[in-house]
């Protein structure tokens, strides 16, 4: 098992000029980077981060796109893997942070939590490269090669759950921008800094 913060920090070192959709890792990513090319959307509707990231990747083929997805989101939209594989965006880096639970609702396990091989599902859907990691040292060792090679690539990473039990109204808010502002900021930045 890895800590989510360590996983996103490791990826950040290889980010370059990539657009980053931090997904469920948003609170950690916000401590690393908060520019127009970071897209902390919160949770517009569960299961959609991969689709959003695919759309961005197709729209901006000359920039790498990094997504931190979750296994709960992925399970809600497994068919999205086939769509991504068919489009095959070479700039798409799909990380799945697998904590085996629905952490934001109190830590209930996702179905068949300990026995789903997400990398095999991705490969079966047509991703040309798919990996799974449980240990940070192995993740760090392989990451440079993963980020150097073309996508679409799928990386499942087992992480410790960060379970929230506070009522939503009492939780610490880490987001600095609304989701629509995040989108508007990106569109503005792409006009002034085209790839």
């Amino acid at each position: 098992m890895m800590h989510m913060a360590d996983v996103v920090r490791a990826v950040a070192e290889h980010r370059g000029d990539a657009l980053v959709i931090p997904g469920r890792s948003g609170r950690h990513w916000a401590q690393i980077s908060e520019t127009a090319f970071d897209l902390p959307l919160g949770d517009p509707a569960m299961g959609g981060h991969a689709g959003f990231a695919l759309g961005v990747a197709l729209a901006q083929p000359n920039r790498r796109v990094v997504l931190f997805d979750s296994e709960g989101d992925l399970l809600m939209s497994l068919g999205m893997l086939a769509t991504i594989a068919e489009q095959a965006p070479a700039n798409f880096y799909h990380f799945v942070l697998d904590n085996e639970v629905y952490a934001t609702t109190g830590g209930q396990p996702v179905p068949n939590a300990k026995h789903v091989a997400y990398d095999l599902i991705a490969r079966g859907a047509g991703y040309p490269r798919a990996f799974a990691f449980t240990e940070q040292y192995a993740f760090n060792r392989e990451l440079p090669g993963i980020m150097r090679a073309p996508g679409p690539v799928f990386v499942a990473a087992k992480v410790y759950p960060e379970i929230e039990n506070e009522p939503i109204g009492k939780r610490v808010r880490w987001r600095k921008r609304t989701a629509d502002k995040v989108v508007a900021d990106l569109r503005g930045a792409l006009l002034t800094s085209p790839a």
Partner: protein
Amino acid sequence: MNDAQAAALSPETVLRQMKQNGVTDIVWLPDSETNWLYLLMQTDPDLRLVGVTREGHACSIAAGLFAGGRKPMMLIQNTGMMESGDSIRGWLIGLQVPVVLMVGYRGYTRHGVNADTAATYTERFLMAFNISFYLVEGDADADRISVAFAEAEKTQRPVVVLVGDEYHGFNR
């Protein structure tokens, strides 16, 4: 050509509307009402087609395409639109995505006597979400597609074009 065919919405007309309004990407899932349009779109080298496995996926993909500077359009059926409620709320309305959804109006019979509950709930669903919609049955109505694009742009919200083509029969 019989009267029904003469009055029908032609795929060439719809494609012309897409071009006039600068559409770059079609995010779609096949449905019986608009199959004739897919066949034409697939031959157009300037349109990227992104096929989805569930209509809600089209919402987040369209939002990402818009965020990245493209102008997507969605083609889905009313049944899938209704199942996509939370994605429409979160990814399209929430992110203020000015996208036009062309929605096959399964069960539409023009005079409101429905045998298919997909038609019964379609307009009620759209009204519940406060989404503007325009009905297009034939070529004479096609300008409403441009009206939908203009409204989406002005309001920065999704707007629906209901394709009532079932009236003319499946897959002419």
